[in-house]
């Protein structure tokens, strides 16, 4: 498989069963990839370049470790200096007043096993002009840098000590005011819905059925769905043709793509 600095960690893990061990051997910080939740959270959003930033190692270290597993480096690796430079050029951090810094410590959230993404987005949305959000974490949240970067945020990563990182986010004046990340209601994430219906889920596994059987089974199950309960479906793909049917029947859904070919869906009445 051909990889480059932008290849996602999830792609590596999916491609070769030994990639995880190889990556952990680069830096112990990557041991958190062994945790399924953190892996799901980070691996898909983190590229090799971001990961090397998190661990403070070089991209080369990755290529050296991954080469024996059959991963080939494509083209020339642009110098990773680019990222560094962007960080250092951000002058806002020198001019910011201490009182305009809003702190958000996500370490307890992560320790509790939840994805802090929506909490962070809430804080970002509540950020007033001139304020700076400081996220306190054990590792540099590089995916967030790229997501918010696209939304017109400048960022600065400060590795305070080995297990302590301060990530600063500052909205540029010309940035879009509305941060939506393409979804209407960030607070109603998969994990929230899953929590809400805990103990009230009716399970349905359609992974072994041929098309269009899964759709029929799901619609049948929904017809008999008691109030207050939600349908938990295990599917081998995202059932795109089901989605308009759900909308028509006034159901909402959340998807959780655990892996290619393994999708979980919660269908509920809003």
């Amino acid at each position, binding site marked *: 498989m051909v990889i480059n600095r932008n290849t996602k960690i999830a792609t590596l893990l999916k491609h070769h069963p030994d990639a995880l061990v190889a990556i952990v051997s680069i830096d112990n910080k990557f041991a958190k990839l062994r945790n399924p939740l953190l892996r799901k959270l980070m691996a898909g959003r983190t590229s090799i370049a971001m990961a090397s930033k998190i661990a403070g190692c070089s991209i080369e270290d990755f290529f050296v470790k991954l080469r024996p597993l059959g991963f080939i480096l494509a083209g020339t690796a642009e110098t990773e200096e680019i990222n560094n430079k962007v960080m250092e050029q951000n002058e806002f951090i020198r001019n910011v007043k201490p009182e305009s810094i809003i702190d958000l410590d996500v370490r307890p959230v992560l320790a509790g096993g939840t994805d802090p993404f929506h909490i962070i987005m809430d804080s970002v949305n509540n950020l007033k002009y001139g304020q700076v959000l400081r996220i306190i974490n054990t590792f540099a949240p590089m995916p967030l840098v790229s997501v918010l970067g696209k939304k017109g945020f400048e960022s600065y990563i400060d590795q305070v000590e080995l297990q302590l990182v301060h990530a600063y986010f500052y909205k540029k004046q010309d940035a879009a005011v509305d941060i939506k*990340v393409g979804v209407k209601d960030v607070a109603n994430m998969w994990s929230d819905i899953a929590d809400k219906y805990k103990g009230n889920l009716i399970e349905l596994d359609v992974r072994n059925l041929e098309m269009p059987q899964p759709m029929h089974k799901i619609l049948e199950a929904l017809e008999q769905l008691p109030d207050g309960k939600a349908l938990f479906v295990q599917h081998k793909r995202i059932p795109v043709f089901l989605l308009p049917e759900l*909308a028509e029947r006034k159901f909402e859904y*959340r998807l*959780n793509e655990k892996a290619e*070919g393994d999708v979980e869906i919660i269908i509920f009445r809003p």
Partner: protein
Amino acid sequence: MFAGVINNQPMQNTTYKVVLPFYTYAALSLFAACFLLLISTGSFTGHYFNPHILAITHMMALGWGTMIILGAGYQLIPVLIEKSLYSIKLANWSFFLAATGIPLLAYGFYNFDMGWPAKWGGRLVFISVSLFVINLAKSIQKSKNRNVHAWFMLAASVWLFVTALYGLVLVYNFTFPIYKRNHIELIPLHAHTGVIGWFLLLVIGVGSKLIPMFMISKYTNSKQLWLIFLLINTALVLFISLYIFKAANAIFFFPVVMLLTSLIVFAQYCYKSYKQRIRKQVDEQMKLSLLSLLMMLLPVAVIFFLIGLFVSGKEDMRIVLLYGFVIFFGWITAIIFGMTFKTLPFIVWNKVYGKIAGLGKTPGPKDLYSERLFAAMSVSYLAGFVIFIAGILTIEKVVLTIGSSLLLLSALLYCVNAGKLIFHKAF
């Protein structure tokens, strides 16, 4: 710890990166073909063997019909056989080769230059088609699931292979005469392997799976489908044999009757599936697709009439033109118009929202394109189609111009709506 995820190779959807270029290319081809139709209306007052008509026919058959079917095919193969596509790389190559070959071929026909442009065009299209056949056959071989739909697709792709190969031979026949028979006499074989072998088998094979799926009907009847499969293939082989051995005109009614029977059985299949549907509301896209199935009867009616004329020793070039027009601008275009907006929104939705649909509420696949543009396109298309037919029959250039203008407008609306989808972004 995650061995289960890594080792058990799951069925994967074909990535949108493979599929979307085909849709984009097809939309542009339709527009180009309709534009050529508008500026070549004069050609529709004479013999069908005319450089402009040959160019338009090939842009419609290859650039529009075949390209979109290849793209949708790569997407549908995993759905039909419950296994991933054999090779993404081959699929991409089939796109690049056909995308380069089709304009060369069309250019060659338009200027009636059977030198290198037409030859290279034909070669590239032939290689592209071969890659599709290999990819499909290998995918089916990998799968344990060999249902009637997969056989339809495989047989159709073999006919496509035959059509492309024979088409290439015909291009060579201009410069190195291979056949003793008059070139024009050879065309019906090429045209019918393409239209009946490739388009009809494929549309029925795929349609018989998708139509019940889209209407949420539990109806299946593989016996009926096998009967259709046998009827169409036998009719086509019979037609080819009769043609090669120069049978009497009246005998050609036999294969046509077999074909008509297969269409009636298919209509019955669709009707039963419609009757047993769970979703009571049939949307506009589905209506146009079902209408296109009725439009299949139009060429059959025309060919009956045509054989009747031949039997009575008459010839009417208008009827031959009409025959080709109702196939490519009628049935095939109508079904693609309808089916594009039943498939493309879902592919795009998966691309844009598939990964973030766990985060919150997202727009549905049907919200990604404009229903109003679709309605305007349908009206303009149906009007243009009927008016152009009137133009062919009356040999009136003004009527042909009005008809083709409306068809061009519908192509434009199609491109805008498909473009809305293809370039849709979440933010």
